[in-house]
């Protein structure tokens, strides 16, 4: 049973709607709407598109689909193959070879957390909503390699899914749009906001050591202009100096955001990743090139490469990168460890249904 204990969910069963229908035959039961809420430091309300509001049945269906390898062409790969809850829904790999073809992917599987607030999805923001994004990994030959027409047939002939779609969407005629809406509803509930840092900042009894507090202070000076707010991302795109040449190979994949926007000023930019659960989501960057947080901070200290689109914040006062001493680096990493949220990674609402 799913509990959604953390969230206030409000049964908004529309009394007005039923009252107006007393003469008509009772239809299939309504899916139960509820409001997913977030803690105050994330702004309380959770965005969801009007066309796909949360329902209890929709989220439960989405969770079942997320963990079901039926979504893949060979029925062996689920979303959770590369998005493991214990790693904040990342996979611990730089470039996974766990897809249907065994070919290495071109980008690292990102963690899935607080996705509802993003403004674009994928590392380059190419997906304009989560519903559209889901088709990417399902169809891609190197990921789940599924034919959507086949998938709809399989789900339609399944012993449980037609009933579950009916409960969630009032129709047992399964379509790709309903499939992805259910997945997106579940994915939007994956909210991490109960780390020790959160409990400290919300005065809920979380304690940070003096070293961690020192790290927090350094973080705010040196990192928080991009890793901003308690989302620890500005949801924007930046070139952080990983490279200074941008190949046109693979249809200019290395252009990052520039490939999507088709603007030269966006070449080499990627979405600022959140730092929540960062201790669990190694390796780092869009291609997983850094194995440890030490390597990441060393990059910002001394590895930043200059090119036309390098972010101005990484080249101030004639200096490239972010100045920090070895001790400051250690403190920042100590602070970053406080962003780990065990309630998120072990939340039974988010784990595979039994």
């Amino acid at each position, binding site marked *: 049973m799913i509990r959604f204990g953390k969230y206030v969910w409000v049964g*908004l*069963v*529309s*009394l*007005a*709607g*039923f009252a*107006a*229908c007393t*003469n*008509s035959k*009772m*239809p299939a039961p*309504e*899916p139960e*709407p509820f409001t997913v809420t977030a803690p105050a430091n994330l702004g309380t309300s959770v965005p969801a*598109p*009007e*066309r796909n*509001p949360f*329902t209890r049945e929709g989220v439960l269906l989405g969770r079942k689909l997320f963990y079901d390898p039926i979504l893949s062409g060979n029925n062996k790969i689920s979303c959770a193959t590369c998005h493991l809850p214990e790693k904040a829904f990342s996979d611990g790999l730089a470039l996974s070879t766990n897809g249907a073809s065994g070919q290495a992917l071109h980008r690292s599987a990102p963690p899935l957390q607080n996705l509802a607030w993003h403004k674009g999805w*994928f590392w380059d923001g*190419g*997906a*304009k*909503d989560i*519903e*559209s*994004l*889901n*088709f*990417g990994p399902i*169809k*891609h030959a190197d990921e789940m390699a599924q034919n*959507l*027409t086949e998938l709809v047939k399989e789900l339609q002939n399944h012993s449980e899914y037609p009933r579950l779609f009916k409960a969630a*969407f*009032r129709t047992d005629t399964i*379509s*790709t*749009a309903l499939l*992805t*809406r259910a997945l*997106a509803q579940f994915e939007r509930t994956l909210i991490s906001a109960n780390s020790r840092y959160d409990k400290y900042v919300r005065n809920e009894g979380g304690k940070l050591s003096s070293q961690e507090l020192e790290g927090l202070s350094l973080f705010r000076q040196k990192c928080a202009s991009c890793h901003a707010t308690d989302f620890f991302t500005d949801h924007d795109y930046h070139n952080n100096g990983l490279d200074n040449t941008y190949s*046109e190979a693979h*249809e*200019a994949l290395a*252009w990052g955001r*520039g*490939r*999507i926007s*088709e603007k030269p000023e966006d070449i080499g930019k990627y979405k600022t990743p959140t730092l929540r659960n960062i201790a669990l989501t190694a390796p780092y960057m869009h291609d997983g090139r850094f194995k440890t947080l030490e390597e990441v901070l060393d990059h910002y200290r001394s590895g930043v490469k200059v090119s036309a689109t390098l972010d101005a914040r990484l080249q101030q006062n004639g200096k490239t990168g972010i100045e920090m001493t070895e001790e400051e680096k250690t403190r920042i990493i100590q602070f970053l460890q406080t962003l780990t949220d065990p309630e998120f990674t072990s939340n039974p609402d988010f784990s595979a249904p039994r």
Partner: protein
Amino acid sequence: MKNKLRLSYLILLSGLGLLSCKKDKVKPAEAKQGSMEVHFDSRRSLTEDFVVNKNYLNANNDSVSFSTFKYFISNVELVRPDGTTFAEPNSYHLIAAANTPASETFTIANIPDGNYSKIRFRVGVDQARNSSTATPVGDLDKDHDMTWDWNTGYTFVFAIGKFKSAPASATFLDFTYQIGKDAQYRTVELAFPSETPTAQIDEMHKPKMHLHANIFDIFGGPNVIDVKANSNSNLPQFSTVAPKIADNYAQMFRIDHIHAH
């Protein structure tokens, strides 16, 4: 537009229990309606039909053939002589010239009785629908090859074929044109032909419109496209070519004739 809004309300309200009232809605009794069948005939030219996988010379004198040619026609409107219009609701039609299960024909239903003198339609998908590929309206979820997943949106015109690498060469190479993105959305307006400048549409009069789509015009028309230099629309430099092709497909349609019926 009104009808599009209506659909989104239905989706929204389905979570609120109001959908159960659908049966209570009363259709306006006074509206009399007709219909019109619209056929898009893929052509080599005004005088020559199009054959799949057959080589033809295009406007740049390149020998090219198409194995696939499909496109979205959307937001169809019929215009009355006084300029007022009827807009087809949920108007998204996948038209396929070759090698797909989609059709070249659709029927516009529930057209209010009257006299019409122009058709207006769009090639592609409007920005509102193009910002998500998970809304099943019209033909939008009919063919999943017509979406981009890494860069959300629909392919407006999808053409796959071969071209001769050089005039004297025997080597044919592949080209793939997936043209889309909001900037390539085009409006086409065609006045009814001089033989039938207006058409009456009502319960007794259900005309059939026969349009020509001169599909090789994607290489010609206002802009001549050299397919040898531009064979893959997914390459970054194609972003300057795509609008030129869009200007070409905006002008590739003609009304051949209208059967009054």
